[in-house]
């Protein structure tokens, strides 16, 4: 069997259904072997999008996403997407072609040392130097990508190894000695944390993306209901609890709701789970919940106490820890009576939800996003680009289920949302998928329109179009005396014409009514749709906590 065939067979054994990629000289043998496989290959127009698609596929489905590229520039174009996946703990396996082994190190045509370049962003990387090594390399890459805290893995396959033939044995055995056991919570730790929680008068839960990765949303909701504890999330945790749940406080942080950012300071016990206390979530760390006893649950021991000093810790996957906590607490708290804390939570939730916008403008991001939520099914998947659009989406678009709000949180990678939406749709063709976009971000990967149209993976892009790099412009307005530097994008391209030139549907809307009609059309027709929504370029995302301030010091 040739190395290329061995690779494809090994991918089939991992139950890979879809690969996002773009071929080139050093990976042609693999693409030839793919012709004889049932694996679907989705052709991209730029490799960065392939990595984002694999990432969106992974986050929507919980399975590992796969992307493929040739050597050199193909491989380096993947890197932005791999780092995006690493920062948000998304399982991705990247396969890259490499120049033939005798040429490695000689600066051959399209040679790049991708193993080294991607090293800080990959949990595992290997360059098989013989056909026999391929099956174990593939097995190990998939195993490690999804193990514990998920992340990217890389297989770099030299061209001669793709062409060479050998007898190949496939086995499910993992031979890596350095794999550490996944930590499990012990009863003493659980007991101590359960006690702290049951004694808390004002418990508060801060949930992050780890709870989604662990598929532990139900358990989290159970715990919150037992404790009558409000739940705020980080951006990555959005959707972990339905945001219309009476205990949901939305997201906290730089662009969290004013109410959630304030009330978290009143907590006496703060349970942070699957959340790494990032600077965007906590504001000024020294002043973040100084009075509360802090409990942290995380599968990654290096996250425990990395940013925030804590009082108790459980190193564990969220699901088993939450199961054990619920079991320990159910008897004690089954009949917990509502306290003044519950009353306060209810009150402030009402205040925040009944806020009426007094702006007379017709098309404001909050109105658009609330309308979008009203119109699309609860289970729809929404991705975002990065910048103002993302923060508006996190503030005003309520996520109702886990894995339905997909965004580049840690890396803040512009151009992520559209290819991630295509990846998500490929994983879940049964669900409508929307990309909440800004014009600046969408332009970065707009060529994925070709992929969406030709591969028949229809998604709808809603462009909140302010003709600006809006978030930078906002900072320049607020902190640089309105001196705009390099943020005006001009009124190009015409997104309707752009969409049409790719064979997609383009709609420009001028009112909420037209917007509703466009969304309804897109839900009915299942074709790639770009909805251009011109908005006021002066619009700020508020509230906002400036960098270096505590969450209590909110603008707006």
């Amino acid at each position, binding site marked *: 069997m040739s190395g290329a065939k061995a690779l494809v067979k090994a991918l089939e054994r991992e139950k890979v259904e879809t690969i996002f990629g773009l071929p080139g000289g050093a990976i042609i043998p693999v693409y030839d072997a793919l012709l004889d496989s049932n694996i679907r290959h989705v052709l991209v127009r730029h490799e960065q999008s392939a990595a984002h698609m694999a990432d969106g596929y992974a986050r929507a489905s919980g399975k590992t996403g796969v992307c493929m590229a040739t050597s050199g520039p193909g491989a380096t174009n993947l890197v932005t997407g791999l780092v995006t996946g690493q920062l948000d703990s998304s399982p991705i396996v990247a396969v890259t072609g490499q120049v033939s082994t005798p040429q490695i190190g000689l600066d051959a045509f399209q040679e790049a040392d991708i193993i*080294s370049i991607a090293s*800080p962003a990959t949990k595992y990387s290997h360059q098989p130097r013989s056909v026999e090594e391929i099956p174990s390399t593939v097995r190990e890459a998939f195993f*490690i990508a999804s193990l514990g805290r998920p992340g990217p893995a890389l297989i770099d396959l030299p061209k001669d190894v793709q062409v060479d033939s050998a007898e190949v044995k496939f086995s499910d055995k993992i031979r*890596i*000695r*350095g*794999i550490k056991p996944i930590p499990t919570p012990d009863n003493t730790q659980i007991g101590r944390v359960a006690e702290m929680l049951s004694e808390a008068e004002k418990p508060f839960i801060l949930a992050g993306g780890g709870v989604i990765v662990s598929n532990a949303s139900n358990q989290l909701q159970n715990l919150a209901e037992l404790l009558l504890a409000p739940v705020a999330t980080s951006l990555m945790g959005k959707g972990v609890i339905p945001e219309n749940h009476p205990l949901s406080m939305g997201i906290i942080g730089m662009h969290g709701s004013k109410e959630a950012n304030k009330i978290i300071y009143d907590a006496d016990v703060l349970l942070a789970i699957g959340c790494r206390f990032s600077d965007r979530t906590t504001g000024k760390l020294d002043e973040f919940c100084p009075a509360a006893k802090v409990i942290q649950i995380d599968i990654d021991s290096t996250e425990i106490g*990395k940013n925030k000093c804590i009082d108790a810790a459980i190193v564990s996957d969220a699901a088993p820890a939450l199961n054990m906590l619920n079991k320990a607490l159910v008897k004690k708290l089954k009949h917990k009576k509502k306290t003044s804390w519950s009353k306060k939570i209810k009150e402030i939730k009402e205040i925040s939800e009944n806020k009426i916008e007094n702006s007379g403008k017709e098309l404001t991001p909050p109105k658009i996003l609330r309308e979008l939520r009203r119109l699309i099914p609860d289970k729809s998947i929404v991705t975002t680009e990065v910048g103002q659009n993302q923060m508006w989406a996190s503030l005003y678009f309520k996520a109702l289920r886990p894995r339905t709000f997909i965004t580049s949180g840690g890396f803040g990678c512009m151009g992520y949302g559209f290819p991630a939406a295509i990846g998500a749709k490929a994983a879940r063709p049964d669900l409508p998928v929307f990309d909440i976009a800004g014009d600046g971000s969408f332009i970065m990967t707009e060529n994925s329109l070709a992929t969406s149209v030709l591969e028949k993976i229809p998604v709808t892009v809603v462009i909140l179009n302010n003709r600006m790099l809006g978030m930078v412009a906002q900072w320049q307005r607020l902190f640089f005396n309105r001196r705009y530097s390099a943020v005006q994008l001009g009124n190009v391209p015409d997104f309707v014409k752009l969409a049409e030139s790719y064979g997609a549907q383009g709609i420009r809307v001028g009112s909420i009514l037209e917007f509703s009609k466009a969304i309804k059309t897109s839900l009915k027709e299942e074709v790639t749709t770009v909805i251009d929504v011109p908005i006021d370029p002066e619009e700020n995302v508020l509230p906002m906590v400036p960098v270096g301030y505590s969450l209590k010091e909110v603008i707006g």
Partner: protein
Amino acid sequence: MTKTYIISALVEHKPGVLYKISNMFWRRGFNIESVAIGTAEQEDLARITITIEGDEKDAEQFVGHLEKLIDVLKATRLDPKKAVIRELALVKLKAKDAKMRSDIFHYVDVFRGRIVDVSPETATVEIVGSKDKIDAFISLTKSFGLVEVARTGETALIRGPESVRLNE
């Protein structure tokens, strides 16, 4: 409080591993004083001894991040009181006349070093001990004229039957 920590790790003895480990030092911003690496008790294993400057949290994070690398089989912080710690240094000094030579021999004797190479103009000394001992030797003999210094960095093992070994 900032101090020196010694971490001993057992790692896969194969190409690229040192790169991945040192990559982590840089990415996470650790302050590395020295790294010593060589084949361990099994040929397919290497033992790496790293000394870092930092506080308790740095040391804990360092071990955690090392253990997250799949090429690292085990990583432990060593208690300097319960470990044998040694560094080897080769120090080439100017030694142009008999007086200089006899002075150098004297210091070498005091520090229990050895002269390993002599030329009409230089003497090369091998000296083994703690980092502090080698620092002291170099600072005392600097006045002769330091030509070259090569140091291995500290390497260490736990005293007694305890060990950082692969579980059989």
